[in-house]
């Protein structure tokens, strides 16, 4: 494997990692507030198509990015309405969001399929740092969304771990009655978390349609929303571990095409003979492995998952 190819592998790792990290970070916020949202795939599709359309119209990738976030928040708001406000089953509502979001995105975008965007996100090439061999190309010559994602990761960690708001959000996710007793509106906390989560997923979708694969075509999210859902479990609901997991998942995504192009031998096994179809499910396999490990490690202790995750809260049913 040449040096250029190896650098390329890590460049793609960071980009695919950013894509699933952004979406998973949003899902993490919602889940820490106690709401499981399986609609990430649908929200990403809506973000991808609306971001792309705004990008076509305005020529500004940032306008597109924030429009996609707004649409994601709106779609997430639907899940909040159904599962938080009305107290419907979160799994059903989330799955409906995925199926409906994919369908709606296909409908909304039917006339822009095959359109060519004029302005896209471009790589930043941070002065001075981008020229460092290896590290520069991998970490300091990426599109701005990558750095924004890092910033958002720190912000989410800070808010959740170090602020009163974060404490309230976590309380809503661990024990809604407790949060309620403390004077917080569980409904507002959860709805807000789901909508912010939707905004993250929508923004991730626009990163896909405005940078990674410029354009819109039905089905272009291609299961990455589900990888994001898996990633939250993999990251044990902690932003830091989520970032590490995102890089690992990004690496498996970047590895899939590259393994075929190079002869790599590990311990006498020709690694590149592994089926690319099998490689595609590696993130899910890793998630199941981590699930087993954490359920084993936490078998005598409370779970790492937010205790009230998936449970609707109605005050009078306490």
């Amino acid at each position: 494997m040449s040096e250029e190819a190896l650098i390329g592998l890590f460049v793609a790792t960071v980009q695919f990692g950013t894509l699933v990290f952004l979406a998973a970070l949003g899902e993490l916020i919602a889940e820490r507030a106690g709401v499981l949202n399986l609609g990430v795939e649908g929200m990403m599709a809506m973000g991808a198509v609306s971001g792309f359309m705004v990008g076509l119209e305005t020529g500004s990738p940032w306008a597109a990015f924030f429009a996609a976030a707004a649409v994601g928040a709106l779609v997430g708001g639907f899940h909040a309405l159904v599962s938080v406000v009305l107290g419907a089953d979160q799994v059903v509502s989330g799955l409906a969001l995925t199926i409906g979001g994919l369908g709606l995105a296909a409908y909304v975008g039917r006339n822009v399929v095959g359109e060519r965007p004029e302005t896209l996100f471009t790589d930043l090439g941070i002065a001075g740092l981008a020229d460092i061999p290896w590290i520069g190309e991998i970490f300091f010559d990426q599109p701005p969304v990558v750095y924004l994602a890092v910033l958002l990761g720190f912000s989410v960690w800070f808010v959740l771990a170090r602020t009163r708001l974060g404490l309230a959000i976590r309380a809503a996710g661990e024990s809604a009655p407790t949060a309620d007793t403390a004077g917080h509106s569980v409904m507002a906390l959860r709805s807000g978390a789901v909508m912010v989560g939707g905004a993250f997923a929508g923004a991730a979708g626009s990163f896909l349609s405005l940078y990674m694969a410029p354009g819109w075509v039905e089905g272009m999210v291609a299961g990455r929303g589900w990888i994001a859902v898996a990633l939250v479990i993999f990251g044990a609901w902690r932003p830091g571990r989520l970032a590490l997991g995102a890089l690992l998942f990004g690496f498996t995504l970047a590895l899939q095409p590259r393994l075929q192009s190079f002869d790599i031998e590990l311990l006498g096994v020709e690694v590149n003979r592994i089926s690319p179809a099998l490689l595609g499910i590696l993130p899910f396999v890793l998630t199941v492995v981590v699930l087993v490990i954490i359920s084993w490690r936490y078998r005598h202790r409370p779970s790492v998952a937010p205790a009230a995750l998936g449970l609707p809260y109605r005050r009078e049913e306490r």
Partner: protein
Amino acid sequence: MAKKFLLRSLVVLTALTLVAAGCGNDDDDAAPAPAPATEAPAPAATEAPEPMDDPEPMDDEVVAAFVFVGPVGDAGWTWAHDQGRRYAETETGATALFVESVPETAEDFRAVALDFIENEGADVIFGTSFGYMDTMEELAGEYPDVVFEHASGFKMNDTNFGNYFGRMYQPRYLSGMAAGAMTEADQIGYVAAFPIPEVLRGINAFTLGAQRTNPDVEVHVNWTFTWFDPALEGDAATALLEAGADVIAMHQDSTAPGLAAQEAGARWVSYNSDMSAFAPDAFITAPVWNWGPYYARIIDAVAEGTYTPGAYWGGMADGIVALAPLADDVPDEVAAEIDEVAAQLTDGSWDVFTGEIRDQDGNVVVAAGETMEDGAMLGMTFFVEGVVGDADPS
């Protein structure tokens, strides 16, 4: 807690299954099965449809209806079929209706087709995805007065159900000649969807063409196992470029490999349609579909009452497949040679899989002077010498 974990794992696994199933279903461009068209017995028409109360107000005008698997704006497979529909409408004067993005499930196709037949008075229905085949066969039995024509399939009957496809390997060979001449690294990357005969045939034809203009060329294949994942397709092209290729060819429906090539300052051979607008600096040429003349011919035959079903596999001679215009910087002598070979393919004096052809292991698969038969071409499972990659990757 254990229960919750169980639920989550279940949901993730279900999602995985959904994703996997989606990949399979969305195969809009499937290969004809190896079996040459045989006369499948028409299913017993269980229920004769009630005589339609004259759904055709204009008696002498033929109504053709097209069922597309993707959106007409996809710049690829469905776009090409829609161009054919428009051409046929103009040529024949018939009404040519269409519905786009129809899933391959039986219920979906049936609902759309029945609407065409009962409400629009359709006389002929074209279905443009492999997965429509069985439903079309059933409908052909139920509606003997309507003609059903199926792209890329292999089933037919004696009266009103035929199939059609094109010898895409012919213009693929020509596009390979151009690509072989344009590569300076002698390495071409080929982003390919699934290891099925149609795709293998295209890769082999492309490679043989590239070897004609550049004996040292290697064609590196990268499988994506998807028709619809632009991010992965683009990244596969990037991986091939990083591995040393400087020209990208593809058997995918998105333009993502071309955008990746343009980004890297490399060149690109697209597929389905002339995609030069998407990556003008990278574009070399493309093997393209041209369905119009076939559609016009079938509609005319239906109008005149002379239609008989067939298993049509037309080539450059029929114009159903062609090569898009070459980029300006393709050398003149290469362009002239491409014209010459195109003329041979068109007049039938020579075909692509003419010996001697060896497979990757050096075994002779077509002896000198012999030409491979259609059946063998439709069931192709090997790579020719010069292809780097695995013809059976799973």
